[in-house]
């Protein structure tokens, strides 16, 4: 049963990585990349590394997402610049 669960989580990681590559909206791509980190942290709990899981949950999928959003809002396209999607 745990094997099925790990397989499902890994498929979820790959799907969210593909979404982060191919979604048109930049916000959705950033959130999908955060979701890949989130599922990776659940697999770390399954592989008995709770320290790493905690770090990945707090830093990898929490703060990194917000840093990306801050950078995105600083580079929000002004009128007259090229569209950057």
């Amino acid at each position, binding site marked *: 049963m745990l094997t099925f669960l790990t397989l499902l989580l890994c498929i979820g990681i790959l799907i969210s990585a593909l979404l982060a590559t191919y979604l048109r909206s930049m916000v959705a791509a950033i959130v999908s990349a955060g979701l890949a980190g989130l599922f990776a942290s659940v697999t770390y709990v399954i592989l008995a590394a709770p320290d790493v899981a905690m770090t990945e949950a707090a830093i990898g999928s929490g703060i990194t997402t*917000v840093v990306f959003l801050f950078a995105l809002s600083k580079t929000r396209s002004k009128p007259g610049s090229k569209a950057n999607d």
Partner: protein
Amino acid sequence: MLKRLFMLIALVLIAILFFDVASNFTERSELSGISQYYVEQGAEELGAANLVTSVVVTYRGLDTLGEVTVLFISAAGASLLLRRRRNTNKKLVVEESSEIVQTTLSIMFPIIMLFGVYIFINGHLTPGGGFQGGAVVASALLFFMLARPNDSISHKLLMKIESLSGFTYVVLGVLGVILAGGFLDNRVLGLGEFGSLFSAGLIPLIYILVGLKVGSELGSLLQKFRE
């Protein structure tokens, strides 16, 4: 189109390399070498229940010092790149958050802060430690920044906390050279009773310092990105 083809070829070559590694990998069934030593002797030798903590703080303590330095340099580099010019220093006013978010802030901010402190004080007993606790403390500061976008956190205070804890970390490391076996040795204080809060010598102290340092560094990094 030719460019796309070259990208695909490069990717396929890397994939072949990875396939070779992955097909020859079998899951390990027993420990070996230095890990065997850490698992069997580490708890008696250093008195910390969490072996990852004793590897991070004591056995590989010098690496952690270097890593904290790398984090400091990257935070300093980012704030150097993001600094504003003097003449464009006007305060831009953004819309306040709603009342729900502000009320949640006043209830949840102390709880999240306390949880971060709990994580890095109990780093030698439960999963967690300085880096995780520092990240949670930085998340509390981030929540403050999101809920009250027009207030700012004192940058000087964060810088003072950060440099003071970094300095004390190195002083504790040098204390290990004088009083115990080597740089960052934790047996300066007594080992205490195994599994209690005041145990494992210097490990809780060092993790508290690392937590304060990481928390204030990430907080000032986020502050730089916001303004």
